[in-house]
């Protein structure tokens, strides 16, 4: 699994960092998404999918 994030689309809601803080973080200054693990495995795979779905701004894409 591969994920891509788009900080320009990001609204800084923090849903991704809340869902899986090992895969996603937020930028200190503007709160936008920071991708920690572009290829999550195991339980993080499911969490990353959920984060992509929850993202209010459509800033997370799951590539198979």
């Amino acid at each position, binding site marked *: 699994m591969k994920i891509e994030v788009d900080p320009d689309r990001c609204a800084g809601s923090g849903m991704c960092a809340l869902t899986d803080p090992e895969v996603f973080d937020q930028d200190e200054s*503007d709160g936008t998404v920071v991708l920690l693990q572009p290829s999550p495995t195991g339980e993080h795979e499911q969490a990353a999918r959920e984060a992509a779905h929850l993202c209010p701004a459509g800033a997370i894409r799951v590539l198979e």
Partner: protein
Amino acid sequence: MTETLNAELPSQRSTAFDPPAELGLLREREPISRMKFPDGHVGWLVTSYELAREVHADRRFSSRAELQHSPRKVKGEPIRQRPPAKPGMFIGMDAPDHTRYRKLLTGQFTVRRMNQLMPRIEQIVAEHLAAMRASGEPADLVADFALPVPSMVICELLGVPYDERESFQQDTAKLLSLDSSFDDIMAAFERLEEFVLQLARRKHVEPGDDMLSGLVATGELTDEEVANMGLLLLVAGHETTANMLGIGTLLLLQHPDQLAALRADPSLVDNAVEELMRYLSIIQFGTVRTALEDVEIGGVVVREGETVSISVAAANRDPARFERPDEFDIRRSAVGHLGFGHGVHQCLGQQLARIEMRVGFTALFREFPDLRLAVPAEDVKMRTDMAIYGVHELPVEFS
């Protein structure tokens, strides 16, 4: 067809905790239906989860204040095009203006920042619970706990003197009261604006380690912009969480099995908070968006300029998304609920609200193992007359 054209937003709740029953019927038959707004505009009402999510996420639906028709009826409101959002009032703007303002704040509301606030929030909660115990029985949980805790937290974050809370709490109540006339609301709004504007001006001279000072220090914003951004955070930051704490406590007291489960396993609180947000959906009128162009959605065409009223409460009770939607169950996964909205305007303070609720409910039920209502449940005054639902007072006993 004429019948649906004349339909107004249903507002009569079937029970204290359930949204109007008509919304459920609409969701089944016509999840996007024609609705007549109080100003005569004929727009749309969305009641299903899927469409509610779609409208919020679709940037062809605008949040610009001057394009909106409100589902809330305000006495004496002139029929007119609404003015555009004031500088800094970014809730009523689209990109790029909305983005520019919001990005100045999102760094302050990250999950990590909010987690760092937890010890201070625990302290504020503990002090208010101790004071409530000391004040004797019956206590009003709203006045002693639910309202002051989030008020104090947002005051400290923004840099608003807490001892000046009475005026902004009263004026916020006027903004939200469905009995307020248009003139009452305008006057309350102007007083609030002036209050925050004076604060913003003071921050030039006496800056503190707070958000208003931080916004002033960017040098990118006028005092008016800082004031309106601050006002938005102040109003949104205390009444919403306050009402979730108040009505959430009542709901849990009315469901002893759920409360017992939470007490037995306090780690359920994160999940319980999401379920409370889903189940209660306290923003009575939901949200509105206006089509910037003709948009095909849910089998209809929303024409350019038509406003869509989104019933978050109905969407959060959609059986297509949540099994047994009308059952309150703190163990279910309510993640994905629309209680904080969806799309780029999704609640900026949601991570703060989550922490306040997690800390607040956990401490309340731990410190008061015998907490119970001091009046019959049917005598609790529900906020049917306010734009944000909840309880006006919650008389409790605890010894």
